[in-house]
């Protein structure tokens, strides 16, 4: 237990501190906020690298790569609630990825948000998000994880709705927040159930943690009324949280709308980190997920994992299909993220932690690269986001074009060089060898095809053909309100982004390229790092088993997708912004159907929202007429009684009493005359009394 483990808490706390200071700072102190955020991120990055090196050191000298530090938080009753953080290969990798990507995006957003008034507020939220994300990563306690999880949700709400003047942004942030909350509710139920069963929420507490064998076995033995054991139940509930947060199938609607936020936000949160949190959660509680009463050794998938796989596969296919019919540059990337997340979930379900995580890491890098590229394109086209109005940017923005193509190819999984290929292949390979059913493999493959297709469509739209920007930019720009793309640049023609934006692109591009080689079947360093297995360079693995055919088939798929893309869009790029999409011309109804994302929004609107409004109407009616009525009648009764009482009081009691008082005071008046202070008056009274007594005496004496 050396210094870094004990002080791992510094990693999330530094950005939190930065967020706090810039929150209190004045709007004008822009440089301070930026430097604080970036500085704290840099320090956290260094600490993460130190932690990563520490874990490597432990691996190299064969010690247990997992170290835990728990402390007692507060006591309720005679039990202590203790929190803690954990440092194991999974945490190390995620720490490095999040801090590195976050730092680059911070630097990028300095340039991007330069002209924004709420610069400091933006950096404060970014720092807060970073600290929350890091908190999720290092948490060794499910409750701590859940707390950071909630802060992440909050920051996503704040960042999406950063330009809250725009009604669409405000609605989008609300939507994101509510849908993730819907996901978080079962997650919380899961936590409670877990705590009830296992008595502690600490993952690893040298034996007593909830993810350790004793509590897992205990959970397995607990039957639930629904038939499956409580472990599965908890796993499914926790997975619901992951669905909400990572935008899996039923709860993915908020992700595309989240594009309303500034591009660095999309890049950081909706590409690299936050959405990955769901996947990370599943990876973190993997022992719980994969627990099943069957033979522990052999990788038979438990019901939870099967669910994960199916959900992942469906989402992957679904995201890819919709992405094809989108026109907004960032919406295309959003739906591609949804499908890639589906891939990750499927990878986790079929391949285990290493497979899913490897794709997560690679995806984080090239997706953030793509988003930043899109950001510089938008910046260049002075706020224009609709790809139909772009075009011909390859000559105008060479750097962006180059890095963008690298990102695109990595995403599609262009054979051999690009990281996307290796990580996706791993997943397809695992799916292929999944013992339950082959459907996920085919869905995955078709999704890969569609991925390649819509990415190439996008490329040709943006960079191919002539620039369509001049025609319509003065007509109406898609986002008139977004302040940062105002025609500040004077000349409307697109131009290359400033150095501060292109440098992160330049850094991300090579990583996107080279990262793949860390997880190739030949030299599976990443997998062995995560699974803590022995590492051996073995080129033979490439060809053994079904590895080779899967790789070949996937590369063919990718090439096929690119070709179709070039066929439809590359040869005859559309002339004007209003021209219909080439694919659209083929089957307009299908195209528009896909354009509206299967009308899922409308569906939800129709069902859930509608249900909600109906319910509110009913309750309003109920409230207005039934309860209100009852209350009104009661008040009326009371009122009546009050009037009656008032009448009685004033006319019967009061007046009576007043009369009494009147008479008393009148008699008092008379009596007071006697006491008027005239001494002789008193003397007369005495004399009178004297007379009376003597008369009485005499009269008595007489008889």
């Amino acid at each position, binding site marked *: 237990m050396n210094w870094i483990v004990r002080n791992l808490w510094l990693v999330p706390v530094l950005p939190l501190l930065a967020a706090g200071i810039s929150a209190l700072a004045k709007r004008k102190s822009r440089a301070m906020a930026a430097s604080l955020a970036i500085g704290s991120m840099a320090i956290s990055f260094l600490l993460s690298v130190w932690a990563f090196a520490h874990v490597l050191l432990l691996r190299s000298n064969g010690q247990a790569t997992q170290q835990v530090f728990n402390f007692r938080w507060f006591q309720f009753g005679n039990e202590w609630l203790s929190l803690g953080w954990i440092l194991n290969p999974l945490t190390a990798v995620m720490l490095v990825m999040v801090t590195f990507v976050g730092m680059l995006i911070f630097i990028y957003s300095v340039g991007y948000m330069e002209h924004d008034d709420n610069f400091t507020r933006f950096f404060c939220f970014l720092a807060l998000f970073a600290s929350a994300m890091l908190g999720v990563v290092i948490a060794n306690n499910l409750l701590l994880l859940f707390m950071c999880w909630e802060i992440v949700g909050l920051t996503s709400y704040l960042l999406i709705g950063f330009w809250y003047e725009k009604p669409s942004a405000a609605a989008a942030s609300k939507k994101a927040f509510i849908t993730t909350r819907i996901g978080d509710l079962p997650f919380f139920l899961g936590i409670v159930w877990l705590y009830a069963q296992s008595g502690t929420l600490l993952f690893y507490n040298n034996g007593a943690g909830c993810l350790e064998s004793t509590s897992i076995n205990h959970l397995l033995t607990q039957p639930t009324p629904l038939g499956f054991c409580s472990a599965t139940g908890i796993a499914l509930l926790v997975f619901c949280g992951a669905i909400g947060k990572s935008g899996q199938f039923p709860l993915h609607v908020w992700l595309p709308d989240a594009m309303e936020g500034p591009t660095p936000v999309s890049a950081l949160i909706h590409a690299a980190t936050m959405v990955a949190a769901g996947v990370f959660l599943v990876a973190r509680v993997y022992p719980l997920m994969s627990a099943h009463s069957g033979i522990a050794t052999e990788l038979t998938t438990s019901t939870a994992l099967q669910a994960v796989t199916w959900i992942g596969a469906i989402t992957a296919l679904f995201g890819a299909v919709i992405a094809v019919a989108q026109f907004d540059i960032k919406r295309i990337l959003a739906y591609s993220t949804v499908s890639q997340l589906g891939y990750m979930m499927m990878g986790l379900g079929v391949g285990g932690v290493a497979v899913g995580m490897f794709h997560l890491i690679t995806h984080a890098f090239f997706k953030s690269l793509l988003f930043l590229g899109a950001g510089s394109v938008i910046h260049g086209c002075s706020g224009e986001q609709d790809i139909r109005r772009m075009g011909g940017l390859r000559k105008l923005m060479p750097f962006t074009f180059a890095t963008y193509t690298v990102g695109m190819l990595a995403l599609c999984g262009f054979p051999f060089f690009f990281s996307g290929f290796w990580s996706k292949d791993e997943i397809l390979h695992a799916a292929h060898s999944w013992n339950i059913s082959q459907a996920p493999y085919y869905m995955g493959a078709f999704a890969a095809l569609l991925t390649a297709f819509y990415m190439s469509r996008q490329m040709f739209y943006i960079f191919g053909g002539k620039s369509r920007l001049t025609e319509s930019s003065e007509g109406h720009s898609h986002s008139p309100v977004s302040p940062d793309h105002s025609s500040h640049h004077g000349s409307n023609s697109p131009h290359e982004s400033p150095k501060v934006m292109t440098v992160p692109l330049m850094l991300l591009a090579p990583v996107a390229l080279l990262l793949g080689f860390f997880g190739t079947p030949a030299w599976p360093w990443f997998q062995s790092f995560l699974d803590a297995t022995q590492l051996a360079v073995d080129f033979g693995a490439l060809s053994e088993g079904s590895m080779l055919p899967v790789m070949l088939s996937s590369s063919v798929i990718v090439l096929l997708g690119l070709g179709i893309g070039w066929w439809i869009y590359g040869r005859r790029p559309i002339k004007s912004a209003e021209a219909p999409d080439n694919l659209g011309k083929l089957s307009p109804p299908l195209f528009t159907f896909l354009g509206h994302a299967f009308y899922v929004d409308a569906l939800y609107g129709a069902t859930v929202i509608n249900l909600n409004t109906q319910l509110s109407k009913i309750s309003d009616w109920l409230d207005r007429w039934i309860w209100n009525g009852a209350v009104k009648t009661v008040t009326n009764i009371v009122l009546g009684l009050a009037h009656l009482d008032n009448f009685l009081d004033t006319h019967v009691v009061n007046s009576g009493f007043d009369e009494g008082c009147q008479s008393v005071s009148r008699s008092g008046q008379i009596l007071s005359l006697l006491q008027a202070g005239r001494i*002789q008056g008193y003397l*007369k009274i005495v*004399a*009178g009394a*004297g*007379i009376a007594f*003597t*008369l009485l005496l*005499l009269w008595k*004496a007489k008889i």
Partner: protein
Amino acid sequence: MTITFLLLAATTITGTAAAMSLKNLVHCVLALTLGLVSLAALYLQLGAQFVGFTQILVYVGAVAILAAFAIMMTRSAEPAVLTGSSSFRVSGALIALVVFAVLGWAVWSGTGALAVLGPEPEAPVNEIGVALMHRFVLPLEIIGLLLTAALIGAGILAMDETRRTK
């Protein structure tokens, strides 16, 4: 009903009536002294020599002078305008009359039985002294105490405020 009794009674009544009705206060006091002296004479006529002389010594000697002093000190000697509302005075006189009527009636009807005319008892002073010292020694002491208290009290009350608070 000897002549002297009638004479003395007449002087007493005229004296006291004048005392009560004269406007000028000093004249009232003097008329009062006349009345009191004739009352003392009545006491002598009744044989109570000691009481008569004490009456003169106390009332004429001290009380009348005290009243005179009081009149002087409160500047009531000047002829004060008599503002009394008549009803006020009439009611007073009426009540007094009624009291006299009742007492008179009581005396008239009551004393018929006690008309015994015993021998003229004479009360020599030393007998009074003896009685004072034996039977009435307690009242004597109390009277002594009372008189000293009255002396001091009257002194302090009438003393000039400035000297009293010093």
